[in-house]
C-alpha cells in the first residue's frame, strides 16, 4: 500500500501535509515550525502545500494563527446531501384532523365537543397550512357556523383512494363512547 516511489516531494512538505490532515483542530503555525529543521522555511513549505491543493477537492485555509484543510467551497452544492426527516403532527393537530376526518363536515364547536377540549387557533392553522383541512361551507343553524372538511391532499398524504377507505367509526369504537350529540326527543 505504501509504495514510495521516487517522488520528488520534500519530506518537510509531506510531513506538514500529514500533520495538518490528521489534526483535530487547526494547527498553529508555531507547532508546524517546531517540526521543521529550520523554522524559517515554514512559509515556503506552506506556499508549496497551498499551491499543490489549489483547484483540488480540498484546500489549505488560514484559521486564526493556524492552518487547516477544508473541502473546496465551490463543491458544496454537489456535496450537500439532504436528508429528509419528516415531522410528525403535534398530538392536538392529529386528534383534530381525525375528528374532522370522521365527522366531516363539522363545526368548530362540534370538534371541541367531540375532543372534549377547546380547539386552539394554532392547531387549526397547522392543519390549514399543511393543506389537510379546508372550510366547507356553513351549517344551516343559528349563527351559520363554518364547516370543516378534509382536503384532497389529505387523501394523498394518507394514501387513501377516497374517504370511504377510512374505517367506519363503528369498527373503531369498541365500547360505545357517549352517543354523538343527539338529544332525541320523542314527541307525537
Amino acid at each position, binding site marked *: 500500500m505504501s509504495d514510495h516511489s521516487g517522488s520528488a516531494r520534500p519530506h518537510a512538505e509531506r510531513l506538514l501535509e500529514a500533520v495538518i*490532515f490528521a*489534526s483535530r483542530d487547526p494547527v498553529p503555525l508555531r507547532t508546524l515550525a517546531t517540526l521543521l529543521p529550520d523554522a524559517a522555511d515554514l512559509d515556503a513549505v506552506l506556499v508549496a502545500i497551498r499551491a499543490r491543493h489549489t483547484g483540488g477537492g480540498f484546500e489549505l485555509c488560514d484559521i486564526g494563527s493556524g492552518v*487547516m484543510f477544508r473541502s473546496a467551497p465551490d463543491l458544496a452544492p454537489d456535496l*450537500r446531501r439532504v436528508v429528509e426527516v*419528516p415531522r410528525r403532527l403535534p398530538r392536538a393537530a392529529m386528534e383534530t*384532523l381525525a375528528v374532522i376526518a370522521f365527522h366531516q363536515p363539522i363545526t368548530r364547536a362540534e370538534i371541541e365537543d367531540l375532543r372534549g377540549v377547546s380547539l386552539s387557533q394554532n392547531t387549526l392553522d397547522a392543519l390549514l397550512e399543511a393543506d389537510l383541512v379546508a372550510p366547507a361551507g356553513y351549517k344551516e343553524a343559528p349563527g351559520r357556523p363554518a364547516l370543516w372538511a378534509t382536503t384532497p391532499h389529505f387523501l394523498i*398524504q394518507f394514501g387513501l383512494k377516497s374517504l370511504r377507505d377510512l374505517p367506519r367509526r363503528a369498527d373503531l369504537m369498541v365500547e360505545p363512547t357517549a352517543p354523538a350529540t343527539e338529544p332525541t326527543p320523542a314527541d307525537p
Partner: protein
Amino acid sequence: MPATEPAPTEAFIVQLEGFEGPLDLLLDLARSQKLDLAGISILALVDQYLAIIEGARKIRLELAADWLVMAAWLAWLKSRLLLPDPEAIEEAELTADILADRLRALEAIRAGAAWLGARPQLGQDVFARGMPEDFTEFDRSRLKLDLPALLSAYLVARRRSGAKRQYRPKPVIYWTVQQALERLTRLIGSMPDWSDLTQFLPEAPQSPLGQRAALSSTLLASLELARNGVLSLRQDADFAPIMVRQGGQHE
C-alpha cells in the same frame, strides 16, 4: 538435543512470570530447541518443563494449578514414552503429536499476532482525517402521516371526551298523565258518545312497556277528569273495555 544449561532457580521463577501459561512456556522451550517444531524432541521438552516447575516449587509452593496440571500430565506422558510396551509407546506418541499440534497452533497465533502488529495501525502508525466534514442537511419540512396514527388519535380524542361526559342514564320518555290530560280534554269534545278509552292513547308507536304506561296514564287522567265532572266512565264487566263520554252524567 542442545545442552540446556541448568539456570539458577530464581531465573526460572522470573521466567515463569513472563509466560502466559504452560503452553506458552512449552512453546518457548520448543523454539529454543529448534526453529522447526516438527523436529523437536518431546521427551527433552518434557524434561525441561518438569525441571523448571520443580525449580520453581522449591522457591514457591503456591504455583498456579494449571502449571501443575501440565506438569503432571507431562510426567505421565514421559513415563509412557519410556515404557518398553510398544502399545503404550504408540499411544504416548499419539498424545505427543497432539501436544505438538497445540504448540504449532499457538505458534501460528503468535505469528498472526505479529503479522497484525506489523501492519500500520490506524491511530498508531497512520492517521485519518482529524477534522471530518459533514455535508448532511436535514429537511424537516415534510409531514410524517399515517393512518394508524390518525386512528389512534381519534380514539384518544373520543375517549377523552367520553370520559368527561357525566354518566346519565338514557331518559325513558313515557306518556305522562299531564300529556294524557291534555289529549283527553282536547279530544273528548269531538266524541259524540261512549268511546273506548284506548282511542285516546297517543298515535305514535310505542314499545309494549310504553303502551302500558300510556294506558295507565290515560286511565289516571280519565279518573281525574271524571272526578271533576268533565267526563263519565263506564265498564260493563271485569276486563271489559273502559268506555268514556263527555260530561259528568250520573246515572
